[in-house]
Every structure is written in C-alpha cells, then in structure tokens.
C-alpha cells in the first residue's frame, strides 16, 4: 500500500478526478491548501497598501492505493494536471503501515 499526495492547481481538480476514475481510483480526500515553491508569489495593491502574496492556493489530493496501482495513478495525475508551466504542483509517494475501514474493521489491502 502507498499513500499518494498530489499538490495540483485548483483549476485542474475536475480533470484529475476524471483521470483517476478512469484508472479505477474510487476514493480520495481533497483539501484546499496554500503553499510556495518555484512559482513564487505576486503583489496585490489595496489603496496604498502593498500586500505580498507568497503562499498560493493549491489543492492537495490524498489517495491510498495498492502497490500495483502506484505507477498508473501517478501517470494519470500527471497527464491531467500538467500544463508544463511553473506551478503545476508535485506528487509525493509515501509508504503506509496499515489501513482500517471503520465500518467493518477490515485492514490492509482489503480496506483500501
């Protein structure tokens, strides 16, 4: 089992969701997050006030998959979220000790 965390542009959510469905991913958790990286920020001006916005809004998708699915899922995310411009985001793959489905108590691959 692996946990895949993908940081993507908010405007790419629908495309990524659809691509994930096509490769058979049915569960995910999506959060609104802010972050910084190579994209840098911008300046906003309110009357006389300059506000440096250096944390940009992104979405974080958390997906848990069986080991055999990892490459397909990463490919799907990249295909859907890529614009080739700075700010497209990142995909992290993390090892996962266990998963428990609360309703049934199932664990491991059966609970994914």
């Amino acid at each position, binding site marked *: 089992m692996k946990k895949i965390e993908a940081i993507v542009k908010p405007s790419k959510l629908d495309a990524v969701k659809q691509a994930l469905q096509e490769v058979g991913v049915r569960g995910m958790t999506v959060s609104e997050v802010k972050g910084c990286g190579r994209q840098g920020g911008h300046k*906003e*001006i*309110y*009357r*006389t*006030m300059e*506000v440096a*916005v250096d944390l940009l809004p992104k979405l974080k998708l958390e997906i848990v998959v069986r080991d055999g699915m990892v490459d397909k899922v990463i490919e799907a995310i990249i295909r859907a979220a890529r614009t080739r411009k700075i700010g497209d985001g990142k995909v992290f793959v993390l090892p996962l000790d266990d998963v428990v489905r609360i309703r049934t108590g199932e664990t491991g691959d059966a609970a994914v």
Partner: protein
Amino acid sequence: MPHLDTGDTAFVLISAALVMFMTPGLGLFYGGMVRSKNVLGTVMHSFIIVGIVSVVWPLLGYSLAFAPGGSPFLGGLHWVFLRGVGQTPNADYAATVPHLAFMVFQLMFAVITPALITGAFAERMRFSAFLFFVPLWSLLVYSPICHWVWGTDGWIRKLGALDFAGGTVVHISSGAAALAAALLVGRRRAAGSMAPHNVPMTILGAAMLWFGWFGFNAGSALASVGIAASAFVVTHLAAAAATLSWLLVERAHRGRPTTLGAVTGCVAGLVAITPASGFVGPMPALFIGLVAGAVCYGAIQLKGPLGYDDSLDVVGVHGAGGIVGALGTGLFASKAINPAGANGLLLGNPGLLTAQVVAIGAVLGYSFVMTSLILKALGATTGLRVSEGEEEIGLDLSQHNETGYAW
C-alpha cells in the same frame, strides 16, 4: 404662518430614511476593508452609533445645534428633550414640513458623521472608550459646528459661507477628527497580511452610500422643488466622474485599476459635491468630481510618509474631499442655480471663496483640537486601545465575544 406641504413632507421623510441607510452601509464599507477577526467590531462601530446619537440628539444635541436663544457659537436650550418640536413647521429651517421631520432628517446627519471617524481607529479601539467618545464628540464637536454653519445665527452662516448638505459640517469635521484619532490612538500592530478581508462587502457598502447620498444632498433642499432635482443630478454626476478619475490616476500610478479604487473614488466624489450640491450646475459638478477623485487619491498617499495610521483613509477621502468641495463651491456657486445662495469666484465674487476658506480653517482647527482633548481625557481614564493580546485575537472576540464567520 408656515403652511405644511404634503409633497415636501413626504420627500423629507423619505430622504431621512435614505440617509439612515447610509450608516449601516458605511459599516459594511469599512467592515470589508478590515481583517476578518475585526469585521463585527468594525460594523458595530457604525451600527451602535445609530443607537447612541439617536438618543443624544433629541435629548440635547438638536437643541445645541439649532435652537434659538444661544450665541453665534452654540444653539440655545429651548429644544432640549424636543420641547416645542412638534408637527408644526419651523419657518427658520423648513417652513413647509413638520418640525419633527426636519429634526429627524438632521438626526441622520448627526448619526453618520461620527461613524465616518471610526475608519481612522479601526481594528484597535477599546469599545468602552468608543462608547464614551461618540456622545462627547456629538455634543462637543458636531452640534457646535452644525450651529456655526447652519444655525440661523451661526457665525459661519453669517459670514456667508455656503454648505448645502454638510461638506464642512459632516466631512471636514470628521476628517479632522479622524486625523486627531489616528495620531492619538496610534498605529495598529501589524501582524501578517493587513489586506481587506472582503472587498465585495465594501462594494455593497459603497453602493448603499451612493444610493443614500441622494437623500443626503437632494433632501437638503428640504422641499420637493427644482433645487432638489438639481442636487440629485449633480450628486450623481460628481460620483461618476470621481470614480473614473480615481481609476485613471490609479492605473497611471500603479498599473491596474482596482475595484477598491473605484468605490473609494465614488465616495470621494460624493463627499466633494456635498457642499456644492445645491449651488452648482452639472458641468461644474463633473469637474468637481474629476478633481476630487485625483486629489483624494493623492491625499491617501500621505499617511505612509507622514506616519499616521488612518486605517481606512478617512482623512484622505472625507477631509481632502470635503476641502475640494468647499473650495469648489467657492469657485462655481451660481445664483442662477440657487437664488438663495451666492455667486462664486468664476462669476466675479471672490468674497465667497474667502468665506469658504475661513469656514474650512475654523472647522478643521476646532474639530482637530476638540477631538484631541476628548481623546486625551478618555486616554487618561478608560484608555483608548485594546491590549496587545486583544488586538491580536481581534475585536470581534475580545470586545464582543463572537466571531463574524463560523468555520
């Protein structure tokens, strides 16, 4: 014997209601510009003033502003508790509407004026100090200035200065008070982004102000007559012109025209046309609006270099805009528009402009000094500011024990 006119009475009462709507509108205008932790505290400043001044005015404030038997500097005590203020018109001020209608129209002006000041000390004023500040300011600053400018024996009125709807009484007085307040309350402790938390709320507030301003200026004719239509039109034109000129200057200076700039420009135009609204025609109104947008844009740039934290730009918009309007009245006023007024400099009468300058100086000086004294006294007793910790968690939670937005 004064004769009551039903059309005039209906117009003045509706105008009073329009002006009332401006103060909660101002609360939203200001509320959108602060951080989300201070939204309720900021809206509350405007809202609670409707309560406070609506009690103080009938008890004492109205009499000190308008009652006979006083001096050129302060009204008498004949109308304390509204004694003698009833349904019969008062020929001195509005001969065709019930005296009570004139009183309540003026009440709405007395309400919004201190509310304008609250933008100068937003996000840090202690609520208890604020509750003392408002009635003191209303009685010691607003009522006297109102009497000087509009009272039958007021010294500025006798001087011949013109202020149709409150350029000096409302805007210059609140602008000068705002400067005193920003200086004496002190700067906000900056922490993180100080950006406005809800610009659409500010736009809604500005729209309510623009709408209500028709009652403010056209209603100041106190009768449904030609001057009211003239004031209505010039009010609208000046607001529109100032919206455009603010954006032009902003785009040239900063590269982008902003929504916050558009609504600030419109308010600057409304402020500037206020004293002139019953005395000038449409073309001078466009000119006054264009100048006001540009001048007020420049004026708000001063607070950075000069170091005072006039948080929501009361000095730059109401102070500077009020001065533009008072001078514009001195230049463009025409007896062809309003025979009860005077001709301005451009029609060959330099005397009016001189009177306007005296009025500006007197109101600026008196409001600044008296506001400073009130705040000094409160600073020594209740304290003006919330504590550092209270400022950090915000006025909503620290002063009112609630939050604007459930999460």
